[in-house]
């Protein structure tokens, strides 16, 4: 079964909390929290998130997609991943 946007958001949220915000309450992040521009994720964290997404969902992203345009909120990330795993 294919992951829905809601599943993806949940999975990525767990990953971000455990990897980059240890000890932080889950309430600290919602779908529209600005991850990059507010400093939750630095640019190296974006590399790790993309590696995580690639491994988890068997997709391949492109180097130029490591930007706030695609990764600034959980919603952005879920949209990017869904578009990539959608059957062509």
């Amino acid at each position, binding site marked *: 079964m294919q992951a829905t946007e809601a599943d993806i958001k949940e999975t990525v949220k767990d990953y971000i909390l455990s990897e980059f915000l240890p000890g932080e309450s889950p309430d600290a992040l919602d779908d529209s929290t600005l991850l990059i*521009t507010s400093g939750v994720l630095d640019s190296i964290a974006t590399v790790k998130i993309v590696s995580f997404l690639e491994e988890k969902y068997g997709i391949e992203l492109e180097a130029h997609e490591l*930007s706030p345009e695609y990764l600034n909120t959980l919603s952005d990330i879920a949209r990017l991943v869904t578009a990539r795993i959608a059957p062509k």
Partner: protein
Amino acid sequence: MSPIPAKADVVVIGGGPAGSTAANLLAQKGYDVVLLEKTTHPRVTVGESLLPHFWKYLDALGAADDIRDAAFVKKSGGTAVWRGMVRQMRLMDFGYSRPPLHVERGEFDHILLKVAERMGVKVFERVVARKIASNGSQRRVSYGNLETGEEAEITCRFIVDGSGQTGVIANQLGFREFDRDLRFMSVWGYFENGDYAAQGGLVCPMEKRYEIPPTTVQAGIGDWGWCWHIPQKESTSVGLVLALSQQAEFKARGANLEERFLEGCRRAPVVGELLRDATLVPDALYGIRDFAYHPTQLAGEGWYLVGDAAAFVDPINSAGVLTAFYTGSAAAACVDGSLKNESRIDYYTKVYSRLVRPRLTLFRLSALPEGQNTYQEDYQIALKAARLDSAVEQELLMVQTRLTDRSLNLAPLVAIDSGLAYNTHSNRYKENIQLTRLDSDEPFPAPVAGLQSVA
């Protein structure tokens, strides 16, 4: 010392902050990492003023407690003396909870290397990396063991070059370009006693440094030159950065390097006065020249350039060690990704260049004297890094460049993207600071208006 292995997953060249960072993070991921260092730590190196965001890297390295326990001098911010005006900023105002530091780099770098070893890195000192070679998915690093005279090779899958200004790979492959806009030399030394500048323009004697935290002082000394004053545990590091046009004059003034250096320090506004009662530590003067350069390529077939081995610009914004941490961490993430999924090696090479090239370009723009950028395309490139910084980091960079009259270099970025925090008027710095001495009525002479010359 155990024998140097013939094989490893990753070979890291150089045990400065960049090399230690990459090696440490990869060892934490479980890879077999060998680090070769030409000298024996602690070794002398420059670059002693650290901005507060370095703590997040220390957390990742597992080195935060070790560095805290070393009790380096905490700094509170910066004092700039430019065109006869004193400006100050306080780093706490930017919301950082842990302090920026003034570190003895010999000790600081040694701690980082020991922590890397604790994380499982196999460290070999007095071993000089000579050349790299590639054959399919295999790399080789040839080295000379300075202890035994042995010459041998290590076979590995990735090489991270953190050899600093030496630039083993960039030089072997002919990738290093010197920056024609930034041709500097620097001379630095250490002074005992004397005074330092704290917040609010307070001038304090050195013995107060643990009670009233010092600022890093930067003073313009004519043309593009400037001078730093960095109080540390035992002494104060003072350095002159001289533009090409100032070097002949500098050399003409004084019979030897020590005399020229002392004369240069004495003439630097504010710094000269802070050093009035200080004494130079003998036999500890150092120099470096033409240190601004960048590579045509940052990563390639199984290799990554990190820290100064990749690039360096003018140190005016104290970004060198941070860049070493940044590039070391980015290279570790990319090598890890590549080792996990070999089909993505090219992707990670690209990712690394996409992250690092804009960052270096942004630093270069923010270090150049105003209006001196000859590469117009740099604005578009730097924008990519600027957008990945948090709003606070953006504001900090803007304030730093304001202090030393370089902020107009960031204006073209704002013209392209008005969302950047480089255009907000920041109240996180102050101008026209009056310097006054702690517990004394003796006035502190105001800096002379207009540019000062070392000559």
